[in-house]
């Protein structure tokens, strides 16, 4: 194996074969984060189930019952829960990816490995929580009399992938910025909160005047959540365009994020 170490110049290509060689490390990082997470908390898995349920109850009382926010004709609890399912995954993945360089600072300063492994693995980790929360959703669907079809589950997996791409793309960008400016750590929770209110998690897109709805769909998570509700809860006929637009935009975000990350990554050890 022959290679050269020289000063970085121009755009750096993604070294896919190298990423592939380090695939074990990717899994190990995911496994480590899951293991540590469930080792340190007393409630473990219950926590992953309890948290979205509690949020669902609070949102149902305040937004569903008191504020009477419409829910496209399905019961508000399952309406908001289906939104929270994907949103929670997205916000955890984004937070993890943005913090991954700082959290793993000591490793980055000591050992070489493709740095992309870190944000990718930390964005994958919350899929475990997503899975547990999904089981609760299936329970709720059964309770409210919705039957999940195989195709709707497959579409949900696709939507999860779009969420992953979006979170990872944004996360890669923020992680690079975070390495140099720690402000990101403080801004991010606020940013995510704002993002949640401009994403149709607690309300449906249908309450927005039709001619402005396209603006909503510039946010990939809006398309993801709307499509998830359409396929699982039949809130509307599934419009094939919204997931495709979401996929396109998420790919764009992802490519920009990877580009920026690759451009800055060689200096992480110097700036961290």
């Amino acid at each position, binding site marked *: *194996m*022959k*290679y*050269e*170490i*020289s*000063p*970085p110049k121009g755009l750096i290509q993604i070294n896919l074969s190298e990423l592939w060689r*380090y695939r*074990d*490390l990717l*899994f*190990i990082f995911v496994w*480590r984060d899951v*293991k*540590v997470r469930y*080792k*340190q908390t007393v409630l473990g898995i219950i926590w992953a189930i309890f948290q979205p349920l509690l949020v669902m109850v609070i949102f149902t009382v305040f937004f569903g019952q008191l504020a009477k926010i419409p829910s496209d004709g399905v019961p508000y609890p399952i309406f908001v829960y289906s939104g929270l399912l994907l949103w929670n995954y997205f916000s955890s993945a984004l937070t993890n990816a943005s913090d991954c360089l700082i959290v*793993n600072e*000591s*490793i*980055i*300063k*000591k*050992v*070489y*490995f493709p740095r992309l492994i870190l944000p990718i693995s930390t964005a994958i980790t919350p899929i475990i929580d997503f899975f547990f929360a999904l089981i609760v959703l299936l329970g709720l669907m059964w309770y409210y009399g919705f039957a999940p079809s195989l195709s709707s589950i497959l579409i949900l997996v696709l939507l999860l992938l779009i969420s992953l791409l979006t979170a990872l793309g944004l996360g890669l960008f923020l992680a690079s910025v975070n390495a*140099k*400016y*720690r*402000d990101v750590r403080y801004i991010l929770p606020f940013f995510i909160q704002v993002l949640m209110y401009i994403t149709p998690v607690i309300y449906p897109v249908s309450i927005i005047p039709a001619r402005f709805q396209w603006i909503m769909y510039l946010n990939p998570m809006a398309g993801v959540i709307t499509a998830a509700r359409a396929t699982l809860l039949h809130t509307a006929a599934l419009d094939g365009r919204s997931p495709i637009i979401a996929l396109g935009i998420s790919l764009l975000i992802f490519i920009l994020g990877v580009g920026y990350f690759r451009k800055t990554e*060689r*200096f992480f*050890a*110097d*700036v961290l």
Partner: protein
Amino acid sequence: MLPIIKIEKLSKEYKIGQRETYYSLRDSVSDLLTFKHRKPHNTFWALKDVSFEVKAGEAIGIIGRNGAGKSTLLKILSQITPPTKGRVVMNGRVASLLEVGTGFHPELTGRENIYLNGAILGMSRKEIKKKFDEIVEFAEIEKFLDTPVKRYSSGMYVRLAFAVAAHLEPEILVIDEVLAVGDVQFQRKCLDKMNEIARKDERTVLFVSHNMGAIQTLCGRCVLLEHGKIVASGETPGVVEKYLKNFNNTQLSDRRDRIGKGNIKLTSVTFENAKGEEVASFVSGEDAIIRIYYEATNPKQDLSQVAIGIGLDDSIGQRIAGLSNIGDNSFPEIIKGKGSFVCKVKDLPLNSGRFYLSLILRHDGDIMDWIQQAAYFDVENLNNVNHGASLSRSDGAFLINYSWEANR
């Protein structure tokens, strides 16, 4: 044979302050708005035009004082940081042991950490599985395999960490100061293991250390760095000798953290070996000379009551000895404005390590000049005084002239 590592004019520039506390976004924004550069972009070359080659199977030592650029070089070779200029051509996979236990997670068990650490160091899961038993056996932690490493003693921790790293199978192994930790026995085991790695398996080893004993045992060839440049390279004994003779004149004139009336001031400190050559390091068991220069503001200063003292501290600041001239009447009564005090130590009874000097100068009951941690020197236990204790500082700072016998 083709060199396995070929380093050509390698240079690394750091901005001064770049590695200090982080720069907040606010600072950047306010710099932008006020059109000013908050930090003048002072730069320094941590490494400058370094070129050398390493042949496959060779164990090469990289020595130099703190800040000479050793760590920067290793960081570039292990791709942690990129060079500013120059290039390196590598003909093999590198694994670096810049700090043992990198990535160990305290909550995970020994078993889990072997997999984690192995993967971080670049092993595949299959490789780790194959080597698992060997690693556990080498680390001597069988009983604690399923205990979280946060409950390990520091010795066990280091053993496990070294064991994982030592079972890597890269063509090139980069090691930085691992031997500074662990107990003597295990250090020796590590050294043997490294020897085995370097000799038998035809693996190339780059070894950075302050421990000249270990360097001499392990490396056939050495590179001496100083201020980012190579000042010597070649067979180990010659380079080590050069390192030891490395001039270390500590200027004291600019020190502000001093106490005293200042009628007489200490200006610098130098170290000499028995032959009167200036050195930065002493050798255990050989004569050592400490020369302290002074300057008096009044050229006809009366020195009849002068008392000079050296407080000797070890590397963690523990006072280990005091050398003073109180009661010694051999000093002249009046001297000219400048001169030096010379302290001769016979058969220096110190073990390997770094030692710091605090200096105090009194006259007639008044403190004239007092400087804490004024200078330091290194000691190398090259001759293995005390039966090869040179591997370790854990035997203590002193070498005592002793012998054993058995009577019946």
